[in-house]
């Protein structure tokens, strides 16, 4: 797969279905001498946007026809143009430019540590440092909604009362507001990588499941992850969760192509920032569940004062809109960041002590001629048939030590390991295939396999000719 400049993830494979307008096509593909020229008086923020607006006013005739190939070229050019904005505007803007101030940084660290300790001694410092930014932001929201002055003053007055309690006291989840603030400060250290740091194993599992389950993310996961089932894809993503931003970049490009396919071509950067914003919000919600690790990660940031103040403004903007929707009731039970409702569906790490009985069971499955069913079940979660032998293999022959509470963990383990189990079993299968048919087959089979057969899996008592045929079929020996 090809990665375009600026993007960390691969470009979507199929992009010819986009539907740019003639103006959009002309802005990118028309010959240069057919396009409007900027005068010295024109100082557009972005040349492409300027060109599109000029062409709308005075359309030019494209010399090339609107064809799938041209549309594909157009989409690729646009992805390259947006990709050029990604390293600086999309990524470095989060991490660079924070000015250290030793005094303020130390005070900020004291405030966060004080909140974490549950003490109130930092109240004055927190209000002096952070409240003015929150007040200005609330006033901004009130102005945006054209609220009367007295309502604005009342909202700001109540904010001053509520601010400290919002940060210090737990919400309905038992999570105090300072964790939301800390998570927003932490995302300035690299909006995705930094937020992954404090997550514990359950939060990482939920992040992976969430990313392959929700909205448009689900379609991206289905397209580019090979895990077969939703949880299989989540397990695959979990193994590479630290490369989340690479996957996210691929998702963003698919989202842009989807927008262009719908004929929406003029809010490209907004598509990028909104999709990345939603992903960050999910990670922040999970971070807030890990206050110890979150505090530790946040306190390790340089320029902490500047980062937390900036975080306060962004957090207060969201908070103000939520309060506005509830007539500024300042109910501190409601978290500002929507909590993560994702269940922990993925099983914990696979216990290697379950490998020996699992391998014996896989051998039994192969001998009973149900390898195709096993492969379909592993990769799709279903065999697609009602095979009773397979049903008995799962229900009766699968040891409880392998099954666990359900077969999810085993199935996800086999997504990545079935081929290695089969490779390890190949010598035994070849030996079974070469057994002499006839009256001594059972004895030969038993002598060959019983010593290494795991005791948790029932050793077969009949069907040896069939086992031999199935083994021969799998290893290609006739």
């Amino acid at each position: 797969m090809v990665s375009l400049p600026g993007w960390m993830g691969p470009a979507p494979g199929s992009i010819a279905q986009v539907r740019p307008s003639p103006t959009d096509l002309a802005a990118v593909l028309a010959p240069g001498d057919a396009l409007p020229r900027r005068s010295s008086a024109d100082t557009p923020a972005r040349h492409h946007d300027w060109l599109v607006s000029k062409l709308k006013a005075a359309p030019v005739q494209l010399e090339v026809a609107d064809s799938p190939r041209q549309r594909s070229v157009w989409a690729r050019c646009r992805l390259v143009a947006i990709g050029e904005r990604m390293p600086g505007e999309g990524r470095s803007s989060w991490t660079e430019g924070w000015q250290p101030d030793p005094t303020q940084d130390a005070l900020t660290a004291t405030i966060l540590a004080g909140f974490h300790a549950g003490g109130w001694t930092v109240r004055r410092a927190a209000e002096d440092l952070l409240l003015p930014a929150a007040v200005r932001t609330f006033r901004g929201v009130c102005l945006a909604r054209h609220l009367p002055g007295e309502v604005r003053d009342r909202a700001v007055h109540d904010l001053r009362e509520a601010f400290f309690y919002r940060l210090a006291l737990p919400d309905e989840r038992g999570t105090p507001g300072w964790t939301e603030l800390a998570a927003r400060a932490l995302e300035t250290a690299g909006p995705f990588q930094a937020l992954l740091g404090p997550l514990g194993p359950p939060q990482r599992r939920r992040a992976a499941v969430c990313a392959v389950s929700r909205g448009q993310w689900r379609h991206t996961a289905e397209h580019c992850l090979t895990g077969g089932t939703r949880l299989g894809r989540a397990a695959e993503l979990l193994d590479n969760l630290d490369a989340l931003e690479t996957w996210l970049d691929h998702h963003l490009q698919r989202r842009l192509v989807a927008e262009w396919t719908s004929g929406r071509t003029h809010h490209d950067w907004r598509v990028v920032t909104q999709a990345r914003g939603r992903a960050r919000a999910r990670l922040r919600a999970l971070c807030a569940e890990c206050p110890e690790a979150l505090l530790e990660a946040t306190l390790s940031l340089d320029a902490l004062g500047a980062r937390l103040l900036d975080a306060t403004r962004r957090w207060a903007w969201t908070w103000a809109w939520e309060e506005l929707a509830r007539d500024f009731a300042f109910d501190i039970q409601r978290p500002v960041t929507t909590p993560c409702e994702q269940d922990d569906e993925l099983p914990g790490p696979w216990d290697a002590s379950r490998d020996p009985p699992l391998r014996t069971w896989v051998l039994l499955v192969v001998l009973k001629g149900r390898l195709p069913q096993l492969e379909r079940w592993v990769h799709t979660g279903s065999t697609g048939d009602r095979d009773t032998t397979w049903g008995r293999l799962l229900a009766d022959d699968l040891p409880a030590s392998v099954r666990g509470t359900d077969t999810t963990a085993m199935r996800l383990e086999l997504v990545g390991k079935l081929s290695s189990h089969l490779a390890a079993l190949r010598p035994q299968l070849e030996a079974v295939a070469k057994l002499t048919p006839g009256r001594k087959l059972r004895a030969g089979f038993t002598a060959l396999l019983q010593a290494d057969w795991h005791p948790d899996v029932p050793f077969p008592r009949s069907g040896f000719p069939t086992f031999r045929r199935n083994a021969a079929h799998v290893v290609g020996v006739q």
Partner: protein
Amino acid sequence: MTSDTQLLRHLCEADDPDQRQAMQADLAADATLASRARRLEDLLDAREPSDIRWPLPPAGVGWGMAMTASAQAMGDSRGHSLFFDDPADARLVVVLWDPDDSGTWQVLSPQGPDDQLSPGDLPLEAGARRRLDIVPPEGPSRWAVALPSLAHGPDWAAGDPWHRFRAGVYVGEVPVQTVRLPGRGVSGSA
């Protein structure tokens, strides 16, 4: 077209860092937009009263004491009673607020040294709870009760009798609870 909301968010520095460069470029390129931004910034920086006389938490919040409210029949009308657990220290002072017409907290009790109640002066109800009767207005209202020790209670000899009390509430050393009542005849709780 950049909306006022987008502009205000940028002026408040509340937009995400990956949105700022585009807005800064728009402002630099568009004189009309820059003019709108200056007008909004003037409104944004207008001053408003900022003093908080009573550092009380929002309605429904408190610490150090649990309080509930329920409607009660009081003579010809219906009032409310506030219930809180009987504290072990009988020398605490009961302080009661409600908001004035502007929404600012005002102390209803005590108004002076002769008006000072301790929990022991209030009726003791089932469950070892003290009952404080109030008469709320017809509409929704907020109430606050604090139980400062004598060390944090009002100092009637001081120029500002409530100075040390406010300091105690501010740092969480005085038990306090606020409650929002929906109006007469409807029960509410903290």
